[in-house]
């Protein structure tokens, strides 16, 4: 990910100056954030978000988890100013979410890539670059770097209407990164991507975090969230049900896991005996299984390295 062309360096300072309460380590803050959808006559239709209090720190990957209709997208839309809160506040970089200036440092990938289908990839990125008031030279460099980064160089002059869903997601991500944002909001980032694309997307999210950027993503694909997120919030019917670090939330404190290599079946009995001696109970001893994702990725990589050869697993069982 190319980050050599920051849009404007003085922005954090300016924001700090304009808001004395602004803590640069808190990128996103929701205070009692509530959203009620109403019909034309003002009658309450649905309470999409209920008094959400949240702080997202600089440099973390934050996941919003929940089933459909739990308020994940509503939260993101409130943070972006696409929706106005019924009560409470949403602050981004210490500024109210409805302020346009905050968008200078934000990148947003919507749930579906709502892009103009009649533009080519190059035109799309150039257009969004213009919206950031980028000079032509900078714009051109960033457009080329991002198209290469998301692997669409071969299709950069094709209209988006000819793109597959995965390709559209990639260009959607590229447009979210056009301004080298400090905060990236990703709505279902892996939806529509094949396993390879999913892995690349996840790698890219981690890479962004490593560059010091803050990523907020919402998803209902739990594995993806588990793989990349540092902290998560679980929402259900508009209410915050759980909030914390992924590793501590998933840790099963009363179970122990030992990973060993090169043991024979006879050694299993010794292990069982040792566990029994310490008053423990063996829940199972087995060979660990690779994930289907790892298997799929291995096959694809091998096929890329040796075109024309049928790949086979080490134990001799082929597909």
């Amino acid at each position, binding site marked *: 990910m190319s980050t050599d062309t920051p849009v404007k360096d003085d922005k954090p300072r300016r924001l700090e100056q304009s808001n004395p309460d602004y803590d640069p380590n808190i990128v996103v803050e929701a205070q009692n954030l509530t959203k009620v959808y109403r019909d034309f006559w*003002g009658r309450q239709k649905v309470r999409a978000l209920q008094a959400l209090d949240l702080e997202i720190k600089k440099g973390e990957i934050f996941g919003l988890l929940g089933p459909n209709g739990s308020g994940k997208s509503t939260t993101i*839309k409130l943070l*972006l*100013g*696409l*929706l*106005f809160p*019924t*009560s409470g506040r949403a602050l981004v970089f210490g500024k109210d979410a*409805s*302020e*346009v*200036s905050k*968008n*200078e440092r*934000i990148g*947003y990938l*919507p749930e*579906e890539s*709502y*892009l*103009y289908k*009649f*533009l080519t990839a190059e035109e799309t990125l150039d*257009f*969004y670059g*213009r*919206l*950031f*008031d980028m000079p032509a030279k900078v714009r051109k460099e960033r457009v080329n770097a991002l198209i290469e980064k998301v692997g669409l160089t071969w299709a950069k002059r094709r209209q988006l209407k000819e793109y597959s869903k995965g390709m559209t997601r990639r260009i959607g991500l590229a*447009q979210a990164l056009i*301004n080298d944002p400090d905060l990236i909001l990703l709505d279902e980032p892996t939806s529509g991507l094949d396993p390879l694309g999913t892995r690349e997307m996840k790698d890219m999210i981690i890479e962004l975090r490593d560059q010091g950027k803050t990523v907020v993503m919402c998803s209902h694909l739990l594995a993806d969230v588990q793989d990349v997120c540092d902290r998560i919030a679980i929402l259900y019917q508009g209410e915050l049900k759980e909030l914390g670090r992924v590793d501590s939330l998933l840790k099963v404190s009363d179970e122990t896991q030992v990973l060993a290599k090169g043991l024979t079946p006879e050694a299993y009995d010794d292990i069982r005996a040792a566990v029994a001696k310490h008053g423990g109970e063996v829940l199972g001893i087995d060979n660990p299984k690779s994930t289907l994702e790892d298997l799929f990725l291995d096959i694809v990589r091998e096929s890329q390295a040796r075109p024309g050869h049928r790949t086979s697993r080490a134990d001799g069982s082929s597909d």
Partner: protein
Amino acid sequence: MVVEEFPNFLEWVGPGLLLLLGISVAGAILGIFLGYVVASFKHGPFEAFYVVAKVISEAIPDAFGTSPRRILAIARLSIKEAMRRRVILVTFAIFAGALLFGGWFMNAGSDNPDQIYVNFVLWGTQLLILLMGMLISAFSLPEDIKNKTIYTIVTKPVRATEIVIGRIFGFGALATALLALMALISFAFVWRGLSHDHEIVDSQKVSAFYDIDPETRLSNRGKRVSPNAIKAAETTFESGHRHRVELVEDIRKPDEKQPEDTSNIVSQTIGPDGQIIYHRVIVIPTAGHTHRVTINGTGDDATVELGPATGYFRARVPVYSDGIQFFDRQGAPNKRGIDVGKEWGYRGYVDGGSRLAPNSLSKADFMFSDFDASVLGDETILPLEMSLGVFRTYKGDIEKRVIGSIQFESVPEDPASQNRFQSDSIVFETNEFQIQTLPISRKQPGRLIAPDGSTIEQGVFDLFDDYAKNKKLNLVLRCEDYNQYIGVARADVYFRATDDLYWANFFKGYLGIWCQMMVVIAMGVSFSTFLSAPITMLATIVTMIVGFFTPFIRTMTQEDVAGGGPIESLFRLVTQKNMEVTLETGIGTTLMEQSDNLLVGGLSTLTYLAPNFAQMNFADFLTYGYSIDSQRLLVAIALTLAFCFGLSILGYFCLKTREIAK
């Protein structure tokens, strides 16, 4: 041509700006009030105050933060989007189809084919371009919101101003390009449709013309020929008409003015009394035009060559008076002339007296305050054009036209001490329904009158150097027939200066359409920030209708109409009371009248909010061949800018305060 307004930009702009300021202030107050009411429902009355204050306080940084690059980016996107919709293509296809087949239905041989052609292309272009402007602008933003493509725009540092102005610019640029193309094609269509050539049937030789019987003075088609025609011939039938070509005998005394155009002279001989006898070939005008004649050779070998049509494609430059003043039979000033009953109110009438009261003092004074030789091209003959209405109280000899007269008077600064010039009356026959031209000699016989009314000197005086020495001139129009009336309006009598370039005038006419188009696009974009696409279209159409009929609606709301306003009228309909019946006084009637006043007041206000398209419509100028003066153009452009500005602000606040996502 009916001209009711004679705008002067510098005089217009001051009150215009005040009106704009008034509307802006009223709009701002109304907007704040409505915003507060809506916010109160959503957030409660106290929080609403902060919400409204926040929106207002953010408007200024938003205005300063507006970036031309972002506006251009959105404009470019709008152009691409509109191109993709193919509305432009369809519009152009309809236009091209109309021109391709429209020519079949236009009669180039009618009385004024140029009017028919120009009218056709102008109205066609206007209708199509306004419709197209409305379609591309009304659907764009609602579609963006529906498709959610707007999400990726508003989450960038894009101000609502940029979204609104960018769209107006983009659609405006595209529609301008299309309009320019349509204007060029229209011009070519009119030009090609009307240009044609004739030849003389059978032989081009003058000697082959047939003789005119001096007794009957009829052509071989039985038409009356010119009084001095001695031979005639006919041209070929082209573009639905043919002309009669006549060889006329033009006898002039040696001290008389000799013909300026010598190209159509076949022979020139000296008569027995020393007078010069010219034999000239002329083409009798048909279908609103004639052709230039060139004679090649002399005597029996002389042949006639007819040039292209002349008389079409005029852009007359009228020098109007600065005001018209009517006087009644007693000579008292009168605003609208003599009342001749329920006639069209555009013209005022002057009467010619009657046998019982022959000395009517009724007249119409046209006051020129800048009557200068430089304005009228320093010519010796000044063409005075008139299009008069006639109101006859008896038919009499229907062939006989009503007689009128004009007279020139100087306007001394101090009539009590300064002498004044007064010309002799120039008597003419009125030619109603047509523009008639009186060639006025610069040297006018008349007299110099002392302040006490006595004649100091009689003689021939110069219109510019004597009569209008102080650049002020009074033209007096009278009716000279008993019991007949001549109707006239300010725009009906004018001196004609050198014509403007026709093509330049043609494009000025299209500039008027451009102004209307830009206002429609701005309306479409602005309304679509808070309305759905079909409702936006409906709102734009309603505003357009109000705009086109602004003068009518305004008159309707300002005049006291018998039968009351809409509610009272409905009441009268239901209770079967006619317009003249006085309603019983009481609370009900008062309530009805007050409600009507409120409705009529609202309608009147609406006419000030809706663009007055009549001020941007120059179709009549082109159709009737008048130059569009720069003052009118400036007013139209200023109005367009004002509306685009106002509508952009409306669009900004509506887009800023609406939730983009649902």
